């Protein structure tokens, strides 16, 4: 199938700004799904609120566009309700880790088989450029007009500590890696987190003088390195890309099925 066949054309044009990285994420996420040969009927995409969360409307799957920060809680209900479905949750950095931070760590802790894609543009785009928990110290935003004094989370470390069993990171510059990583994240049985650095030239780029969308993508090339590379040892400031953490652990829905079996036998 062509990528176009996974889109709801009725829904277009999309609402993202020129130069936004989210389209690259959407394109490569659909490529992963196509390459895995998944049927559209077995995929549920659940999202919250924000620019990234609008992805769910554009794709021809079962789609649930919910409320701010709670997508993973809705997704938990969908997945436990019908575990044979593939549940993918695209989220923005604010949606996932500010208002949704609690649901994020608890979904990770349960190791429920959901693929969470954190589209990290380090800003609240839809509301017009406020700092997020991933903006980081020293960044500029409409709500940090002098400079941001809020520390940021390391999504990968947080996910790992909370119990996610698959954690990966890449950027919109590394489009093919997005496809590859999302494929593995979907195949992984358990809670998977994929952080994708994605540019917001309209707000983050403009406020922080990072230039055009292509300039911002070049920064992703310059500031990141494959995991375990020589470059990281020479320059610890570089952000690592690739699969950062992958372990096997009991998955929540499988475990619940065992509970049902035991409970029904005891009856």
């Amino acid at each position, binding site marked *: 199938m062509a990528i176009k066949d996974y889109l*709801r054309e*009725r*829904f277009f044009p999309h609402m993202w700004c020129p130069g936004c990285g989210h389209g690259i994420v959407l394109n490569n996420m659909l490529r992963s799904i196509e390459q895995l040969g998944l049927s*559209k*009927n*077995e995929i*549920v995409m*659940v999202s919250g609120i924000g620019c990234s969360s609008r992805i*769910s*409307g554009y794709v*021809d*799957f*079962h*789609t*649930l*566009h*919910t*409320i701010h920060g*709670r997508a993973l*809680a*809705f*997704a*938990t*209900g*969908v*997945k*436990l*309700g*019908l575990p*044979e*479905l593939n549940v993918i949750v695209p989220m923005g950095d604010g949606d996932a880790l500010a208002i949704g931070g*609690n*649901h994020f760590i*608890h979904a990770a802790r349960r190791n429920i088989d959901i693929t969470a894609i954190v589209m990290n543009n380090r800003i609240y785009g839809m509301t017009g450029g406020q700092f997020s928990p991933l903006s980081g110290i020293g960044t500029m935003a409409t709500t940090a007009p002098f400079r941001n004094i809020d520390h940021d989370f390391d999504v990968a470390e947080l996910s790992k500590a909370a119990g996610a069993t698959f954690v990966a990171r890449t950027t919109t510059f590394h489009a093919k890696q997005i496809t590859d990583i999302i494929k593995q994240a979907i195949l992984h049985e358990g809670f998977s987190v994929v952080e994708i650095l994605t540019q917001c030239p309209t707000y983050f780029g403009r406020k922080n003088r990072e230039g055009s969308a292509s300039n911002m993508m070049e920064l992703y090339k310059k500031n990141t390195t494959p995991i375990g590379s020589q470059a990281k040892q020479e320059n610890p400031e570089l952000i690592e890309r690739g699969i950062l953490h992958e372990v096997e652990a009991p998955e929540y829905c499988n475990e*619940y099925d065992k*509970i*049902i079996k*035991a*409970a*029904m036998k*005891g*009856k």
Partner: protein
Amino acid sequence: MDPNIKFIQGNEVCVEAALYAGLNFFAGYPITPSTEIAEHLAQKLPEQGGKFIQMEDEIASMAAIIGASLTGKKVMTATSGPGFSLMQEALGYAIMTEIPCVIVNVMRGGPSTGLPTSVGQGDVMQARWGTHGDHGIIALTASNHQDVFSITIDAFNLAETYRTPVILLFDEVVGHMREKLVVPEPGEIPIVERLRTSVKGGVDYHPYLPREDGRLPMSDFGGVHRYNVTGLYHDMWGFPSNNPSVVQGLHRHLNDKITNNVNQISRYKEYYLEDAECILISYGSAARSALHVVQERRPRGEKLGLLELQTLWPFPYQMIKEKCENAKSIAVVELNAGQVLRAVKRAVNDPEKVFLANRIDGVFITPVDIRNMLRFVQGRGA
């Protein structure tokens, strides 16, 4: 002994009834005085192949049942005041997206943490207007175990019929009190199953186009119809829209499907109303004391009657107006500062004849309390 005769807590009755109605998914978070509902379902659901999940908070609980409802499950959550406050945003989402679900609120004393282990009925207005925006809502209540059983089943049936969240406003006394329950045989109380679309795969399915009778046939997630569900105003495909006629149409539909069916949704019980000069209007546990007063006073020739409300929302204004037409005085017996009182005053011809008989100190209202207050109403007071 007949195994269908039980001596159990109100919270357990709610569990028995929910399972009778076909509940197969529950998500919740512990909170007094509703916790027994979660505890019993954690045990009983997996025994029947159903699912129970303890979420990280009430927001997540409400979200999880909505997600599970979309996969075709009959769903419920249970909470009390503070948790009910947290659920309000997702409750509005379920209203907007027309997802059937049941929310039990075993009311305690509020506001805030209030009186966790004491009775209150202070969430009547929150059930109506707690979530933002205009909307219709169904809220039911009951005063005794047999009624808790049937009204819980009603809640599931109404949620499926009108594709809307239904709130069960029980209270601490009803939830924790133990009394007899006779469990009906399977099939004795009719169960409304989910109306699913007959549209075949590959044919354009309109998930948000109501049939002529106002009902919306559903398609489960995972089925042949892939559609969008959103809390934004949406068209018949579920696509976001800010087209004024689409917005107005959906706004009207969400309100009208409830308000146009007040008579179908309204449940109440009446005692000695025919010739009553003084009518007590009450609901939930408070109605038990009110009934006691009426039954004790009638043999003495006092023309007292009781109207026990079981549907609080949509409020049965017309029914109350008619029943109260000939009454000289009306006393609303409730455990708050006058939430149903206000609605009753709006319903009757002469609001001046409506009085409040209440307690707001966390102590259950007794027949003596009500009799003392009636003395004032009837002009025989101090």
